C-alpha cells in the first residue's frame, strides 16, 4: 500500500532487522522491515537554541508533520497507522470514513455538535493560571521560573475530556441510523462518557470492560449502570476489552456502532478521535492569545493511548516554537518491567488494527502494562503520536507511580484541584521541567480529568 507522505528516518537508511511477529493480524503488503527503537529509555535529546529551549529544525515541508483530514486517505502517519483488520471490517471502516468526512463539512451537524459541546459538556473549558503552582516552582529557583497554565478538561461534563469525542460519535451513530453502540473502556472514563452520550441521544449502550479494571474502578461500573448502559466483563484488562469489542463489532456489522475512545485502532478511528478532541487545542490557542498575546512555549500532556495529548497538540503541531511534551507512565520504574511507557520502551508492531509502538516481548506477545493511573494502562499508543515521536516533533518522558501520587497531593494542596491520576503524571513532570525553563516561559498543562475517582487509590497508597 502506498503512503501519501514519504518518511525518511533521521538515521537515513534502513536496517535488515528480523520481521516482528504481529500476533493479531497478518501484515498485508507493506514494509516488513522495521527500525527498532530498543532501549530508548533516555528522554529524547534535542539541540538547544540560544534561549536554552530545544531547537527543532522545521522540516522542508511542514505538511510532513500533519496528516490531511479533509479527504479520505490511507490513514497513515508516516509508516504508522493504517488499517490492519479482518476483511469483514474494511467496508464498515470505509463507510465510517465517508460519514466522518461528510459530517465535518455538514453545517447542521457542526451546529448541533457545537451547541451540545457548549450546553451539555460545558465548553469552553478555562485556561487557568495556576498562581500557587507557579510560585512554588519559582520559589525553588530563586524566584525564576515558567508561568504555568492549566487547561481545565477536568471541568467538562463527567470530569474528563472523553466526553468531547463520545458526544460527536454518538451523533454520528444516530446519523447512520444505528440504535446500538458498543465501546471498550479501561479506567471507565470513556465508558461513562459513552453511556452518558447514549442516554442523551436515546441509544442503547454496551460497554466492554476488563475484569481487572472493574475491580480497580467499581465506581465507574456503577456510573455506567446508572446511566443505563450494560457492562460486559472481559477477562483481563483494557487491551482484552478492546479486542473483544472489535470482535463483537465484526459479528454485528450494520447493527451496532463501535465508538472508539482513543486515537488508536484502524483508520479512520485515530483520525476521528483526534479531530473531535482537537477542540481542546483550538480553544487553547485562542485563550493563550487572549491571555498573553502569544502561543505557549511548551504544552505538556499525559499519554495513555493519546487522545487528550493529540487533542491539545494538533493545533500546535505546525508551530515549531511550541514544544510538545508527553509524559507516560513509568509505573514501578522503566527497568522494573511494570510500566506503560510505550514510546520509551516499546517496539513497532501492529496492534488493534494499527501500526504503532507497543509493549511487546521478543515473541511479539503483548506485555501487560501497569500504572497507578488506570487510564494509562494501554500497551500501545496512538499511531499519530508514534509518528510525532519519530519525526522528533514531540518529546516524551515518563513519571513513576510515586511521582504521580506526589503530584496529585501537591496540586491538591497548592491549587485546590484534584487532578486525575493520569493527568498527575503530566504534573509530575513539572518537577524536572521547570528548573530548565527561562523565567516567564509559558507552559500549558492539559488537566485531562478530575481526580475524585482516584481519592481512594491515593488514600491507600503507601507513603514512603
Amino acid at each position, binding site marked *: 500500500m502506498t503512503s501519501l507522505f514519504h518518511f525518511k528516518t533521521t538515521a537515513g537508511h534502513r536496517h535488515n532487522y528480523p520481521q516482528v511477529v504481529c500476533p493479531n493480524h497478518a501484515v498485508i503488503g507493506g514494509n516488513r522491515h522495521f527500525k527498532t527503537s530498543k532501549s530508548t529509555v533516555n528522554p529524547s535529546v534535542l539541540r538547544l537554541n540560544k534561549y536554552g529551549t530545544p531547537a527543532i529544525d522545521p522540516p522542508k515541508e511542514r505538511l510532513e508533520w500533519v496528516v490531511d483530514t479533509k479527504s479520505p486517505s490511507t490513514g497513515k502517519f508516516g509508516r504508522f497507522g493504517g488499517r490492519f483488520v479482518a476483511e469483514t471490517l474494511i467496508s464498515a471502516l470505509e463507510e465510517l470514513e465517508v460519514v466522518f468526512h461528510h459530517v465535518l463539512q455538514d453545517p447542521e451537524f457542526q451546529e448541533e455538535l457545537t451547541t451540545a459541546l457548549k*450546553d451539555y459538556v460545558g465548553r469552553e473549558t*478555562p485556561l487557568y493560571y495556576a498562581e500557587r503552582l507557579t510560585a512554588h516552582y519559582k520559589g525553588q529557583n530563586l524566584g525564576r521560573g515558567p508561568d504555568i497554565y492549566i487547561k481545565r478538561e477536568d471541568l467538562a461534563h463527567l470530569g474528563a475530556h472523553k466526553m468531547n469525542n463520545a458526544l460527536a460519535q454518538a451523533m454520528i451513530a444516530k446519523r447512520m441510523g444505528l440504535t446500538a453502540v458498543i465501546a471498550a473502556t479501561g479506567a471507565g472514563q470513556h465508558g461513562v462518557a459513552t453511556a452518558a452520550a447514549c*442516554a442523551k441521544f436515546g441509544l442503547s449502550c454496551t460497554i466492554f470492560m476488563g475484569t481487572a479494571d472493574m475491580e480497580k474502578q467499581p465506581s465507574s461500573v456503577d456510573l455506567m449502570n*446508572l446511566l443505563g448502559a450494560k457492562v460486559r466483563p472481559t477477562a483481563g484488562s483494557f487491551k482484552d476489552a478492546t479486542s473483544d469489542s472489535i470482535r463483537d463489532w465484526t459479528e454485528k456489522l450494520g447493527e451496532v456502532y463501535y465508538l472508539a475512545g482513543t486515537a488508536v485502532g484502524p483508520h479512520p478511528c485515530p483520525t476521528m478521535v483526534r479531530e473531535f478532541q482537537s477542540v481542546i487545542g483550538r480553544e487553547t490557542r485562542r485563550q493563550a492569545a487572549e491571555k498573553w498575546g502569544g502561543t505557549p512555549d511548551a504544552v505538556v500532556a499525559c499519554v495513555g493511548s493519546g487522545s487528550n495529548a493529540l487533542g491539545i497538540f494538533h493545533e500546535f503541531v505546525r508551530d515549531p516554537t511550541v514544544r510538545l511534551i508527553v509524559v507516560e507512565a513509568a509505573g514501578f520504574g522503566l527497568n522494573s518491567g511494570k510500566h506503560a511507557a510505550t514510546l520509551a520502551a516499546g517496539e513497532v508492531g501492529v496492534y488493534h488494527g494499527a501500526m504503532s509502538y507497543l509493549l511487546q516481548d521478543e515473541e511479539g506477545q503483548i506485555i501487560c502494562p501497569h500504572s497507578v493511573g488506570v487510564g494509562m494502562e494501554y500497551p500501545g499508543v496512538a499511531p499519530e503520536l508514534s509518528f510525532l515521536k519519530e519525526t522528533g516533533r514531540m518529546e516524551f518522558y515518563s513519571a513513576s507511580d510515586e511521582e504521580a501520587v506526589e503530584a496529585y497531593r501537591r496540586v*491538591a494542596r497548592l491549587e*485546590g484541584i484534584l487532578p486525575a491520576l493520569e493527568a498527575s503524571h503530566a504534573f509530575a513532570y513539572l518537577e524536572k521541567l521547570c528548573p530548565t525553563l527561562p523565567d516567564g516561559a509559558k507552559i500549558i498543562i492539559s488537566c485531562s480529568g478530575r481526580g475524585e475517582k482516584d*481519592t481512594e487509590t491515593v488514600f491507600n497508597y503507601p507513603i514512603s
Partner: protein
Amino acid sequence: MAIAAAAATSPTTARTTATLSPPPPISSSSSSSSSSSALLNFGLAKSTARPRTTAGLSISCTMTRDAAAAVAVTEKDDSDPALWSRPDAFGRFGKFGGKYVPETLMYALTELESAFNSIRNDPDFQAELGGILKDYVGRETPLYFAERLTDHYRRPNGEGPHIYLKREDLNHTGAHKINNAIGQVLLAKRLGKKRIIAETGAGQHGVATATVCARFGLECIIYMGAQDMERQALNVFRMRLLGAEVRGVHSGTATLKDATSEAIRDWVTNVESTHYILGSVAGPHPYPMMVREFHKVIGEETRRQAMEKWGGKPDILVACVGGGSNAMGLFEDFVKDKDVRLIGVEAAGFGLDSGKHAATLTKGEVGVLHGAMSYLLQDDDGQIIEPHSISAGLDYPGVGPEHSFLKDKGRAEYYCVTDEEALEAFKRVSRLEGIIPALETSHALAYLEKLCPTLPDGTKVVLNCSGRGDKDVQTAIKYLKL
C-alpha cells in the same frame, strides 16, 4: 443598634432555641414552666423562675401564638416585590432574619457587613472575583435544554412545558457551593484574616471551603460531626488532602447542627483572626444577604441565557431547598418579576407524617436557630427535631430567613418530595439525559412529575441542577438495587 439590643438577643444559640410563641402567657401563676425558662436561658442549669404576679406591673404585654396578629403596625401596601427591603438595615426580611448572637460576635458581624458593602461596588474586587469564577470555577455554567426530559413530560396531544437545566453541576467541585466559598474567602483576605473555619455535614461544603483555602493559601479548619466523619471517610480524606484540618465534634448527636454550634463557638473565641465561612443563606445577618449575593450570579446568567435562547424570561424557576442557597441564587434576580413563579422543593424524607423529614417550610414553626429567626423543625419544648433526608445537603432543620419571608409573602411556593421520589428522579434523569444529578437536586427534579402536567404548552421551566451526583451513586445503587 439600641433597638437591636432591645429585641431579645438570646445568647449562645448553641443548644437551645427560644420560641417566640410560648404556650402560656407570662401572667399565669405557673411560671416555672419550661417554656419561660427557655426564653431566659443563659446556659445555666435548670433554674426556677421567680413567681410573677400582675400586681405592681405598669406595662401589660400580650403574648399570642399567632405572631401575625401581634404586629399591629399598619403597613403600606407592599405587594410589589421590588419595594421589599431584603434585608432591611437590621438584617431582617420582614420579621425573619436578624442577628441573634452573643455580644462578642456583634462587632465581627458589623465589620463583615461593612467590608461586604465596600466590595459590592468595588470594580477591582468584582473583576478579581469574576476572573476566578471564570477560570477556576468554570463559569458561566450553561443553560441546557433537556430534550429527552421535555419529551418525557410531553402529554399525548403533544403539549408540554420546555425544561431547561441550569448546570451548576459543572462547577469546579461539582456544586454551586463554590460560588459563595470563593466570594467569602476573597472577602476574608481583604479583611486580613488568615484563618478560615467552616462546618460541614456530609462534607460538600467542607470540601468547597478546603478547596478555596488551598487555592488562596489560608489556614483552614473544618468542623464535622463525628458520626458524619465515619460515614464520609473519603470526604474527610479529601479535605485533608486539600490541606484542611478536620475536627470531629462529639457533642449532641454528633451531626451537622452540633458541628455548626462548635464552629460558632470557635468563631466567638478567635474572632479577630478568623473568618467563618457559612455555607448557606442561614445564620445571622449579614450572612443570608452575603451568601445570596455571591450566588446571585446563577440567576443573572440565567436571565441573559434565557433571553438568548428564547428571547424572554423563564416562566417558572425550580430549585431544591436545604438551607436555601442555590434557590436564592437562582431566584434573586427574578424576585421582582412577579410573572415568574418561584418554586422551592424540600425533603419529605420518609414522608411528612413519619416525623422523619426535613420539610421545614411545610411543617416547621418560627423560631431562632444559629443566629437567625426563621422557620425551623422544633418540638413543643423548642428543641430541634433531628431532620432526615436521604440527601445530606437537605438534612437541615432550619431554612434561610429569606425563604421564610418569601413563603409568608406568597411570593414563592414550597413543596416537598420523599426520599423515594428523589431516587426515582435520580435514575430517570441519569437515563434520559446522561446527567447524574445530586440527590439534593433530584428532589427538585422529582417535583417535575407533579408540576409538568399542570403547565400549559410551551411554558419555560428552568430548574437549578445544583450539583452532580457522583457522590451519591453508592447510596442510590443500594436503594435502587441496580
